[in-house]
């Protein structure tokens, strides 16, 4: 079923000798919020630019509803580039109408849509001001309006949350959730992992131009090694050392954090702890996205060191 499906399929890109993307593949489904995370320079912006046709890929294909994307279908995408940009000396209203018309809307539709979005994003009172006279926060709102003005059926947003104040973050989150609820695929990149974890249905982690993890947030979290948190006041140092498949990764006062390998028995840990005295806390914890991300990046560093 390719309805409302945006597919990034085996995209590769080199800049001279530097490999920016190596067969990056993922898809974003209708009505889904897809979080795209990775360190700076990992290839997020390059991927988005290729999807928008602003850059040409060396290999691979971007498909929309099963057919390769063209300039015509790209006009359906709402795009927020990482490097924000609007004409500084053009009035907000005129600028938005112009951009909407470049996406193919009639002047009438464009004007209506401009009124709607400036109202909804709270910049209606600045319509007749030049963009350069707006505060940074309001410029961001206009930028978001520019991405939404043509009623896109796909949303691709590069770092939409960067530089936003907490209120604007809420506005942006709401807009993204609403858009996904309307049944359109939404993909955005971000460094704010808590936000990604909270908003997104699925995430993709990109490292050195390759997708290394991709899946639902819960699925990814449960895929990581499980952790145990044990609080027992009388445990001596090294109390858990003898248990197979268990590694102590942190100890602070009475609380010990342990990592369980696949197949390790957490009940054995509990018995060992009880043997020392009372146990006030015993819980299994799944890693947060941040921890997952960190472990992925650490792997990268290890690979680098090995190379």
């Amino acid at each position, binding site marked *: 079923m390719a309805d409302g499906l945006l597919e990034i399929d085996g995209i590769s890109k080199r800049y001279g000798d530097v490999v920016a993307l190596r067969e990056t593949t993922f898809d974003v489904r209708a009505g889904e919020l897809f979080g795209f995370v990775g360190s700076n320079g990992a290839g997020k912006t390059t991927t988005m*630019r290729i999807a*928008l*046709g*602003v*850059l*040409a890929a060396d290999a691979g294909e971007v498909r929309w509803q099963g057919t390769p994307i063209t*300039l*015509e279908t*790209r*006009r*359906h*995408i709402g*795009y927020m*580039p990482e*490097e*924000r*940009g*609007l*004409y*500084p*000396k*053009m009035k907000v209203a005129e600028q938005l109408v*112009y*951009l909407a*018309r*470049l*996406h*193919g*809307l009639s002047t009438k*539709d464009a004007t209506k849509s401009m009124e709607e979005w400036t109202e909804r994003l709270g910049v209606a009172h600045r319509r007749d001001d030049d963009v350069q006279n707006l505060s940074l926060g309001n410029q961001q709102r206009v930028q978001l309006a*520019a991405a939404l003005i*043509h*009623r896109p*059926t796909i949303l691709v947003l590069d770092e939409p949350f960067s530089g936003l104040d907490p209120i604007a973050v809420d506005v942006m989150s709401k807009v993204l959730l609403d858009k996904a609820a*309307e*049944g359109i695929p939404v993909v955005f990149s971000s460094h704010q992992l808590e936000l990604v974890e909270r908003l997104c249905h699925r995430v993709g982690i990109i490292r050195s131009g390759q997708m290394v993890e991709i899946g639902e947030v819960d699925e990814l979290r449960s895929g990581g090694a499980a952790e145990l948190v044990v609080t027992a006041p009388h445990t001596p140092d090294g109390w858990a050392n003898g248990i197979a498949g268990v590694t102590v990764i942190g100890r602070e006062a009475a609380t010990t954090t342990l990592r369980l390998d696949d197949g390790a028995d957490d009940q054995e840990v509990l018995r060992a702890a009880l043997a020392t005295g009372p146990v006030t806390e015993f819980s299994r914890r799944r890693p947060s996205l941040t921890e997952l991300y960190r472990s992925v990046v650490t792997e990268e560093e290890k690979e680098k060191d090995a190379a």
Partner: protein
Amino acid sequence: MSAPDIRLGTWEAVSLVAGREVKTKMRSKAFIITTVATLVLLVGFALVMKLTSGGSDATVGVTQETEALAAPLKATAKAIGESVDTKNVDEKAGRAQVADESLDALLVGDGGEIRVVVKKDLDDTLKNALNVLAGQVAMNQEITRQDGDPAKVQSAVAAAEVAVEPLEEPFPYQPDQLVLGIIAGILIYMSLLLNGQMVAQGVVEEKSSRVVELLLSTIRPWQLMAGKVLGIGFVGLVQMAVIGGVGLAAALALDVLTISASAAVGTVIWLIVWYLLGFVMYSLVFAGLGALVSRQEDVGGVITPALMFVIVGYVIGISILPSDPDNALAEVLSVIPVFAPTLMPMRLAMGGVPVWEAALSVVLVVALIPVLVWLAGRIYANAVMRSGSRVKLKDALRPA
């Protein structure tokens, strides 16, 4: 929700971009100020011409004794291309008027010899006229002394004239047309310079404000470039037509220009044709070069080499053509595409350009434009998304 119908044709995309340029530029203060200033200058120039050409070059006072010299003085002055007015005064009043400069000179004495009273020194041309007059007076006196008839000798002398047999018929350049040529040259030069730079600045504005990425996600690079060139070109055309039209109307209404209306209209039409050709040619180059840099401060440096051709053509034209409209160097250069937009309209306004030369220069530029479209389009498409340091021309020309 249903997606709105969003088909956007090539022409629609280009005209949308062009429309934005026209709207923004026409409303800009710089545009309004340059247009009005040029108009004021041009009309002012016509008025000044009118005031100076109407009056005489010099006014000479004559006393009762020297009154007989008034007519011969006027005739002599006319023969050397000066117009002199005379005024009858008595000697005392005349001297006072010379002192307060309402008279340039006062003829005194008994008429037998030429004596002239001036404030400080005698104007060179007036001196020439008076010297010739003095010679004639002396000759007449001598002829009378030898019993000849001065009038008869005068008419015989006047009738004698060298018979010129030209191997090639020279073109009869009229001073009015030379002036027209100079004005045409200045207008086209200013227009190419200002509007051409505007194209380069516009390209860099989009690059430095980074709005270009948003634009290129909806339209192709060449559509953006073409829209910009057409939009600014149209604004320049309107400006040129207004300035040319008003200037010409003022000149004709004030009788400053005595050429025929058809020659005047011909000049304006050629001016517009060459403005369009020159603008399209140069602005494509400017757009391509402008895309190489990311900051407004760097625009000047990157387009200067191309700008030099406009400047060199103009300087050669303005310094050589008015005094030597047949100049061979200017003639050859005016057919070469890079110099033609500045030189050819000047020559055309001055007149005497063979049809084949006018046609050839147009054909060459028209043939060059598609090459430039391809070249500039390629540089633009390759360089416009690369912000940061200046993109090397060599890299920008490489296939994408």
